[in-house]
């Protein structure tokens, strides 16, 4: 795994997203599933729906990272592309809940950074998966 950047980043990011999702439930007890007022988990403003999304993304990344390079590439690129595409579509649908990336906050910087990094790594590295399988 250590020889494949895609497996490495999928595993690390997957574990972090899972942890953030689990810890999120600890700070959002009593908050409605899609409440308009979330709670703060360090710098991440979360509600239970957001925790579920974190858990799902974390599980997908972690499983893909543990299983193999080709799957990790696919999941990395997919997660990054979906976040970026939703955000870009949201730029044009101003009043829609898809308008998620145009906020100036530390958590937005980290979300965007992790998404474009996953997309970039998925597109550009481990182009010969067989060579990177260890």
């Amino acid at each position, binding site marked *: 795994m*250590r*020889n*494949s*950047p895609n497996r*490495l*980043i999928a595993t690390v990011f997957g574990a972090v997203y899972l942890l953030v999702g689990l810890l999120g439930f600890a700070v959002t007890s009593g908050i409605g*599933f*899609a*409440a*308009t*007022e*979330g*709670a*703060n988990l360090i710098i*991440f*403003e*979360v*509600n239970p*729906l*957001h925790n579920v*999304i974190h858990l799902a993304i974390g599980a997908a990344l972690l499983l893909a990272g543990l299983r193999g390079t080709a799957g990790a590439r696919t999941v990395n690129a997919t997660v990054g592309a979906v976040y*970026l595409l939703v*955000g*870009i579509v*949201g*730029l*044009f649908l*101003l*009043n829609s*809940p898809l*308008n*998620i*990336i*145009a*906020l*100036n*906050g530390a*958590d*937005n*910087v*980290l*979300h*965007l*950074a*992790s998404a*474009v*990094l996953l*997309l*970039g*790594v998925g*597109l*550009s*590295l*481990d*182009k*010969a998966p067989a*060579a*990177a399988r*260890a």
Partner: protein
Amino acid sequence: MGAPRTTATFHHPAPPPVSQAHPTVRLVTGIAGFGAGSVNLAISSSLFAAGAPGPEITAAAAVAGLWGAALLAGAVMFLAKDRLVGSRWARAALAAAAAVHLAAVAFPTAATSGLGLTQLSALLLTLMILAALGWLGRQGARQEGGLPEQPAVVRPARLLLAAFAGAVLVAGITTPGLAASTAGQYAVPHGEHGSLVPGGHHQH
């Protein structure tokens, strides 16, 4: 026209003569392309949202949208296919875009006066891409010219750490630019996903 293909390998018995910096710079350049594309699309969205003040604003919005889409597509081609490194057309287009962003910052009009920070963000990302493409082009020329270079095994953990730092830098430039656009006035805070609030939150 294109530069030599420089796909990184990670535990080859005889690694190619690429420096540790090369794949990192390539990756961060592509990420900057995603950031610049997003910011240009935010400029387009803002100009369209301004209503219909005139055909020139509509045309500018369309050009910004097309350029943003081209940047996103170019970033994908660059990362996935190793294209565009040596393309003079790409560099010329990026230089022209940088000049337009600079002019928009220096000489704001009524329609663009609220987009100064967004234009500045786009300018910084465009200059970052231009500088990185220049560096990558010179590295390619050095390898073609047969100049000696220290062989180095690319270490994934180091590569990812450096790329993560680059991605945070790009996101740190992109996010304020997006937030300063019209879309930023309506964006949904993360803790409020799932709620539909007509009229938006008007947060910056």
